[in-house]
């Protein structure tokens, strides 16, 4: 189309302009159109001496190169063949020979080669001759017939053939070498010489063989053979063989002495993806079993069963049945992979049951313990639906029955009970841990914490001294010791025993490092001076204490806390200190973060009035919150205010945090928790919806911390009581995960029931339960109990399930469940400001 539309225009151009146009197209590398222009000129001025003919030859040559670049060798050669007729010259004939060879036109290639062989254009065409030599050696008749006389190609062919024949016949290395030595270094057959030398060395010196083929260029026709030799010479040939193509691999397999089965193995391996799909890999192993190491293959298949359980029947058929433990373990792993946490727990439990059948076997006991610890992790992080979390602590405790020397498990139990505010269990487990690990600083520190929490300061100090003996740079132990002496000093001050108080303060001072003085001892010395009516001394110690505290707000907080501990009002000293009104303090970010840290410490020390002390600082703290921008800072601040607790500041801080991090579930939780003053009953409807949305977001983004917090709050605020106490029977079967909307539906049913007169509620519930459709997962009576528990409220679930296990005919008491306990009643660990 383009040609027909442009031709009339070109035709109309005068010759000089046409020549100029041709030149322009040539300069722009548009050789195709340049050829059209010059062909037009050829029609107008056919005389051979025209100057533009050379340009036409160039256009033909470059266009031919362009086509060859696109692997259109035949077309390239045709274009090149035009050149001699146009300008009487044949530039770069080796290109044409190469293209003719590439398009398998050997006779034509040899004719062009013979015709231009002695022109300067062929000087340095060693690669071409090497290729022609290889074709001659391969037995290409057209090449052999037309090999020019008196050329190395013809002269050395017989020697090369003899060498090849000798190698192929299996003649000795020396015999083959004799032939090879007759091939000169500059021969077109030199790469054959290298390749055969390397093949000879393959058996005796593979390293040398690989070295020999290094000299074969990548453009050489023997390069493919060189790659084969390198693969065969490799210490681990398998991966090298994979880099070869199928034909190369076949020849390599022959060289390596591989049989048909091994070759099939290589072929199948080449078809596997990287990384291979589990099913495909399983199939690959099974279909090549005869050639693979049986034990290796069995183990590989076994490993794959945890991700490809459908392979189990084939596995059983080939390797025999799986031991019961192994079958359960694989199912557990697969369930975990599929995020079916309940199912995973069930299979892990079955594993434990299998293992403890042989309790005397140490490995079995250890594995049972490890599985139980794994189950605890699964129970802690898995998704089990509303109020159905299984019992991490139960699994941990159980694991110690089989492996009592795992320190981590003790520490986990201690942390679990501590975080859950189960004081009794917490202290018990600390005691057990200390008994088991009396020389372990981490365990001893836990003992320090529990003794301090029980106000057993002497005991705490004893543990702390022991920790410092084992770990002299343990700052926490040092702090505990100082605090212990301070606590004693306060006791003495309150009892009016001032000299004894001073002695305790001196002892506290001895433990304090010179470069880490906090000012707390000095403030207590000031308070002691106040008690003794030594005003000047008091002022001196207070000034020193404030200086060491680092800032007015921190100094004030420290003094206020210490004063409260001695049942004194901090306002008494404010004037003496010249601190002014705390509500007018200026607090910067660094001071705020230190204050947050101190508040946490005071809370850990069970200082009860910290919330009311913060009230005095509300204004400056709110101002300081405006300086916060980092998310981690917001989390620390909110967490501190959540635990302190100070609801107003918490709501304020969370609202500020949400402005910077909109929609973050944790901040939504803190905001609503603060607004509802930590009481789930006080959550507004709109906030309830927001919390549920935040929970969904937290689940979707795997934000477990926020999800757990929100779940706890929504399911009544206090710490979860998801597990049976130690010493209880085996745990009940896991409860299936509820669909997300089920809880709302249950709430709706419950509300409907509550609207009925009390006497009708029980019978109505029974009728509803009678109408339940059958469920494959549970027997009808369990299904009834579950549904009833769900309708009556999450907190009744475990109780009803347990009673169902013990006594199936307990339905007579159903009416007593109405009205069911509302959310938020009788919750343990509930705190109100």
């Amino acid at each position: 189309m383009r040609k027909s539309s442009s031709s009339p225009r070109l035709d109309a151009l005068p010759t000089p302009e046409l020549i100029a146009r041709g030149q322009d197209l040539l300069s722009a590398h548009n050789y195709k159109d340049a050829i059209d222009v010059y062909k037009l000129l050829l029609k107008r001025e056919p005389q051979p001496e025209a100057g533009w003919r050379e340009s036409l030859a160039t256009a033909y040559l470059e266009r031919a190169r362009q086509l060859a670049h696109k692997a259109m060798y035949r077309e390239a050669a045709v274009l090149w063949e035009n050149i001699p007729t146009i300008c009487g010259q044949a530039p770069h004939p080796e290109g044409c020979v190469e293209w003719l060879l590439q398009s398998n036109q050997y006779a034509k290639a040899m004719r062009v080669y013979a015709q231009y062989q002695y022109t300067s254009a062929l000087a340095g065409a060693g690669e071409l001759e090497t290729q022609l030599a290889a074709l001659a050696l391969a037995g290409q008749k057209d090449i052999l017939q037309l090999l020019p006389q008196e050329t190395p190609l013809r002269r050395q062919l017989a020697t090369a053939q003899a060498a090849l024949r000798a190698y192929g016949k299996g003649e000795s290395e020396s015999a083959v070498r004799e032939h090879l030595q007759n091939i000169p270094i500059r021969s077109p057959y030199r790469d054959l010489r290298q390749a055969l030398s390397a093949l000879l060395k393959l058996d005796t010196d593979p390293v040398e063989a690989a070295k020999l083929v290094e000299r074969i260029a990548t453009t050489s026709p023997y390069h493919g053979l060189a790659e084969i030799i390198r693969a065969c010479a490799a210490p681990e040939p398998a991966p090298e063989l994979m880099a070869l193509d199928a034909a190369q691999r076949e020849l390599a397999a022959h060289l390596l002495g591989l049989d048909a089965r091994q070759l099939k193995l290589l072929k199948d391996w080449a078809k596997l993806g990287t990384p291979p799909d589990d099913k495909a890999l399983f199939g690959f192993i099974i279909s090549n079993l005869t050639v693979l190491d049986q034990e290796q293959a069995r183990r590989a298949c076994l490993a794959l069963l945890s991700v490809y359980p459908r392979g189990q029947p084939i596995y059983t058929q080939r390797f025999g049945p799986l031991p019961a433990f192994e079958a359960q373990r694989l199912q557990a792993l697969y369930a975990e992979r599929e995020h079916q946490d309940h199912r995973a727990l069930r299979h892990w439990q079955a594993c434990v049951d299998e293992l403890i059948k042989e309790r005397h076997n140490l490995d079995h006991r250890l594995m049972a313990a490890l599985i139980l610890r794994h189950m605890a992790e699964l129970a802690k992080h898995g998704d089990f639906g509303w109020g159905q979390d299984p019992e991490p602590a139960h699994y941990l405790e159980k694991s110690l029955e089989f492996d009592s020397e795992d320190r981590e498990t003790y520490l986990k139990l201690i942390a679990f009970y501590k975080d859950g505010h189960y004081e009794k269990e917490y202290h018990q487990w600390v005691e057990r841990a200390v008994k088991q690990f009396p020389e372990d600083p981490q365990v001893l520190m836990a003992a320090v914490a529990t003794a301090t929490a029980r106000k057993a300061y002497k005991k705490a100090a004893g543990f702390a001294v022991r920790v410092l003996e084992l770990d002299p740079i343990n700052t926490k132990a040092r702090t505990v010791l100082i605090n212990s002496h301070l606590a004693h000093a306060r006791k003495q001050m309150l009892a009016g025993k001032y000299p004894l108080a001073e002695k305790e303060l001196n002892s506290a001072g001895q433990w304090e490092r010179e470069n880490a003085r906090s000012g707390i001892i000095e403030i207590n010395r000031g308070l002691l001076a106040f008690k003794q009516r030594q005003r000047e001394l008091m002022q001196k110690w207070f000034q020193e204490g404030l200086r060491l505290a680092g800032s007015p707000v921190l100094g004030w907080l420290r003094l206020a806390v210490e004063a409260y501990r001695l049942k004194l009002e901090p306002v008494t000293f404010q004037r003496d200190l010249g601190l002014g009104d705390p509500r007018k303090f200026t607090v910067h970010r660094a001071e705020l973060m230190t204050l947050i840290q101190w508040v946490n410490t005071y809370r850990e020390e069970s200082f009860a009035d910290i919330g009311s002390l913060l009230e005095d600082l509300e204004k400056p703290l709110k101002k300081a919150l405006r300086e916060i921008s980092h998310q981690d800072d917001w989390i620390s601040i909110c967490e501190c205010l959540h635990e302190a607790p100070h609801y107003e500041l918490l709501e304020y801080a969370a609202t500020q945090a949400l402005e910077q991090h909109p929609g973050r579930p944790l901040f939504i939780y803190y905001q609503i928790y603060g607004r509802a003053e930590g009481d789930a009953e006080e959550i507004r409807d709109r906030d309830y919806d927001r919390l549920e949305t935040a929970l969904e977001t937290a689940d979707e983004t795997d934000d477990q911390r926020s999800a757990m917090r929100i779940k706890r709050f929504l399911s009544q605020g206090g710490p979860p009581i998801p597990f049976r106490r130690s010493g209880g029977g085996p745990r009940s079967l896991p409860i299936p995960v509820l669909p997300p909307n089920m809880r709302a539906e249950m709430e709706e049913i419950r509300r409907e029931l509550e609207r009925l007169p009390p006497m009708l509620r029980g019978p109505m519930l029974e009728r509803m339960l009678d109408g339940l459709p059958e469920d494959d997962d549970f027997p009808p009576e369990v299904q009834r109990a579950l549904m009833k528990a769900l309708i009556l409220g999450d907190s009744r679930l475990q109780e009803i399930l347990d009673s169902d296990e013990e006594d199936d005919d307990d339905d007579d008491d159903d009416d007593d469940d109405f009205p069911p306990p509302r959310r938020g009643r009788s919750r343990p660990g509930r705190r109100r400001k």
Partner: protein
Amino acid sequence: MSLSNPFNILGVAETADDAAIKKAYLQKVREHPPERSPERFQAIRAAYEAIKTRRDRLSYRLFEHETPDPARLVASALQIGVRRRPTEQQLRQWLNNRLTGQK
């Protein structure tokens, strides 16, 4: 989690005890110090951590999903056979196919 077999990385049998594993680990670290081959060192270190104690080894056996390495399976299957020379005809045919584009 998929993990390269730590026993293979350290070059020890799966029945090896703590002492043998530690010895193999130290040997490997000497061969591949962190300053010379940091990635290899990391792998050795991770392998050691995975099977250091009896509990670790049992834990690895119970919970780690180790994707079988087909290369290793194939490699062990290829370690048999006697090397053979191709015949002249085979070599010529192979060369011809290579040059004429017949694969």
